[in-house]
């Protein structure tokens, strides 16, 4: 669905955030985009939806460049930034003024989501708390039924019940036609929701694979000690060492996304090599 090729981008007068970056995202998945602070997660998302234009390379949705912000692409994508703007309107008036721009907008779902998120229907949006505003916009974005839904830190500002409701709503919203991209550094909020992991590090995408593929190649475990084991990465924890090892038994452990992320950005090349090597072997 999204093809990013040879992307180089930096804001005018600023150093490059991405250099020769490649990424391709397909429908039917929820992507979790991870990266350190300042790695450029938000900027990458903005490139995807046409808010920034590549200095070099190209961002395309369904084969069409997003740089000119063509209307037919805008009609089929919804972007929810971390900091959102809401007009001084009630949800009802907001829908009547804005929903008409989205051909597949479903008003019934919008009001259902609002109810599930417990956002009052008759209150003026700009006077609600940040969390309430965000939920209203998430409800709108989901109801717009666009094939691409991009969210930057959507769980920021949500209270605990809202996070639960958010996961339920997103789980229900994923269809085979839809591609949902979520950037986050609160992995625990979303780790059971995303099925593909994208890691942005030092101007490049260093990982884009499904959690299943990762679990096939790597085992995540907590061990009292690591003597005699082939350990790719280890971190001390209260219960012993949290480790990542090659998956030799063919069992599936739960992918510890935080551990994996730490391992990847620590410059651990053996881990990345292992992920890539097995891919190479499997190709034969």
């Amino acid at each position: 669905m999204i093809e990013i090729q040879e992307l180089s981008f930096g804001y005018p007068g600023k150093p490059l955030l991405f250099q020769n970056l490649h990424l391709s995202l397909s429908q039917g998945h929820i992507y979790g985009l991870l990266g350190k602070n300042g790695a450029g997660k938000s900027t990458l998302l903005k490139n995807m939806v046409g808010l920034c234009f590549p200095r070099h390379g190209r961002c395309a949705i369904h084969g069409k460049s997003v740089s000119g912000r063509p209307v037919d692409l805008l009609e089929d994508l919804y972007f929810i930034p971390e900091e959102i703007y809401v007009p001084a309107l009630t949800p009802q008036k907001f829908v009547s003024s804005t929903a008409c721009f989205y051909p597949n907008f479903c008003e019934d779902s919008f009001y259902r989501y609002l109810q599930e998120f417990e956002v009052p229907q008759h209150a003026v949006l700009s006077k609600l708390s940040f969390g309430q505003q965000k939920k209203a916009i998430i409800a709108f974005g989901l109801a717009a039924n666009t094939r691409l839904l991009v969210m930057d830190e959507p769980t920021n500002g949500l209270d605990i019940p809202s996070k639960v409701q958010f996961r339920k709503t997103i789980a229900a919203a994923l269809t085979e036609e839809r591609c949902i991209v979520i950037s986050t550094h609160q992995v625990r909020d979303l780790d059971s929701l995303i099925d593909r992991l994208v890691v942005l590090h030092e101007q490049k995408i260093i990982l884009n694979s499904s959690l299943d593929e990762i679990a096939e190649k790597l085992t995540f475990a907590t061990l009292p000690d690591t003597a005699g084991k082939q350990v790719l990465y280890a971190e001390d924890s209260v219960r012993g060492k949290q480790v990542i090892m090659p998956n030799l038994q063919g069992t599936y452990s739960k992918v510890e996304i935080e551990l994996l992320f730490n391992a990847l950005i620590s410059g651990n090349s053996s881990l990345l090599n292992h992920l890539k090597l097995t891919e190479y072997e499997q190709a034969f």
Partner: protein
Amino acid sequence: MEFRDNEAIYLQIAAYISERILLGEWPEEHKVPSVREMAVELQVNPNTVMRTYEFLQKQEVIYNKRGIGFFVAPDAAAKVKAYRKERFLEQDLPVFFTNLYLLGISLEELQGLYEKFTSDHYGASQKKES
């Protein structure tokens, strides 16, 4: 549902469904919740639930009626038990035996402990098969 740390989520969901079946909550021919319903209930990615259902289908615990959904297969409880037994014998028992050996626990000592455990938890009269 709280997911544990050590096992892939799709397997934990499979265990959750197996438990429903073993406890008799979902009898044979009972309709299993749709992928979407299950994903929403457990707050997980629908693809993960799909993977669980494919896995259970391969184990012949559930089956797919075209266009209607998934149902608990005939003999599902027995299949779940067989599968669990196999996994226990293959994965958990070797670890258990290693500990017995390392700690020098004899089989007689173990038998006494086992009998006490079953009578405490499942009552004297009840047997595993009942």
